[in-house]
């Protein structure tokens, strides 16, 4: 079978993401320490975004949030085209099914968020707060990070 550059690249990129996101074996030739650094960084960013999107759930879980999310993330890597809000909702469902959170927290926060944005005028909008690994977000098209969606809620 003849393989072109695109097929070879697809294979290599798939192996790398599987290793970083889904516990796959380390691809040949990579520095394993750096693979661990990268995997931790990606996980921290994903965890931070979910925490931003469902703060009520994070409050309820407290210290359990991080280990629970990390367990969820490894077995539920984000798929192409998925949205950050879907990720947050899927984690809440997963945690709810395991009895870790109440139904209220498992069904976030869209209603609450809209309510908040409706009553909070522009001048009192909350400033961003620090969260781990919150570099410039890679979101998917209709997904908006905190703040943006609040502002232009339709």
């Amino acid at each position, binding site marked *: 079978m003849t393989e072109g550059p695109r097929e070879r690249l697809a294979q290599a990129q798939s192996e790398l993401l599987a290793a970083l996101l889904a516990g796959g074996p380390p691809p040949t030739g990579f520095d394993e320490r750096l693979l661990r650094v990268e995997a931790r960084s990606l996980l921290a960013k994903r965890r931070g975004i979910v925490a931003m999107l469902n703060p009520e759930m994070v409050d309820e879980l407290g210290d359990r949030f991080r280990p629970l999310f990390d367990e969820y993330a490894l077995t539920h890597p984000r798929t192409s085209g998925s949205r950050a809000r879907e990720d947050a909702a899927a984690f809440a469902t997963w945690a709810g099914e395991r009895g870790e959170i109440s139904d209220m927290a498992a069904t976030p926060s869209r209603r609450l968020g809209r309510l908040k944005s409706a009553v909070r005028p522009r001048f009192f909008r909350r400033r961003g707060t620090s969260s781990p690994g*919150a570099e410039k977000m890679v979101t998917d098209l209709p997904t908006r990070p905190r703040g943006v969606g609040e502002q232009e809620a339709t």
Partner: protein
Amino acid sequence: MGVIDKLGVGIGWRAEIDLTVERLPGVDFVEVVAENLHVEHLPESIVLLRERGVPVLPHAVSLSLGSADPVDLHRVEHLGAVAEALGAPLVSDHVCFVRAGGLDSGHLMPVPRTRDALDVLVANVRMAQANLPVPLALENIAALLEWPDGELTEGQFLAELCERTDCWLLLDVANLHANARNLGTDPNRFLDEIPLERLAYVHVAGGVENDGVYHDTHAHAVRPEVLELLGELRSRVDPPGVLLERDDNYPSDSELASELAAIRAVLARHG
């Protein structure tokens, strides 16, 4: 120069600091994350800035042009629509991939610096360019890891990309610092190798060092080493624009103003 004559000094517009961006003195241009904008519902702050004549440049993070997957034209079209809504002279994304094998990394991942990967990137960039109403600039990313068997330096890789696609460069000096610190990239050699005449503008951002690894957080102050690289660049070329990126842990307005002033001072000192 062509596409971009002079942009000046700018800051990344974010909803959390919209009023700050409107009030800060000396903001010559801003950048918006294209995926966060809906053409039908532009934030009023962005509309205000456009009314004042401030250029607003769309910056994309999800095209995944370094990916082996085919280009997602829906994303390209959205970027182009944002550019048209804002009257922007160009758009940008990164030399990276985000999606592969059905998974989404959630962050900008480096591409292998191989001929194979360059061929795929070039084809993807051409496909994007053919579907965009304005020129495309591509940004060097901060990588935490390096692919094995690289055939080109990062500078050579970017130079060849520019030559083959006529794309522009969005040079992030904080990312260059990150790669120098974490991966041993030689920043002077990098600046020697890239085509400075294709420079659209420059990103400057803050970061933090933990356990010997520099993290490009956009949530901390700009480090002196990054400003030094900006000075090194300025001693070689007068960049059309320089833009400060801050995405989280927002400081006071006066701190942001002083970071912009520090950028201006470096440009003046090395000019």
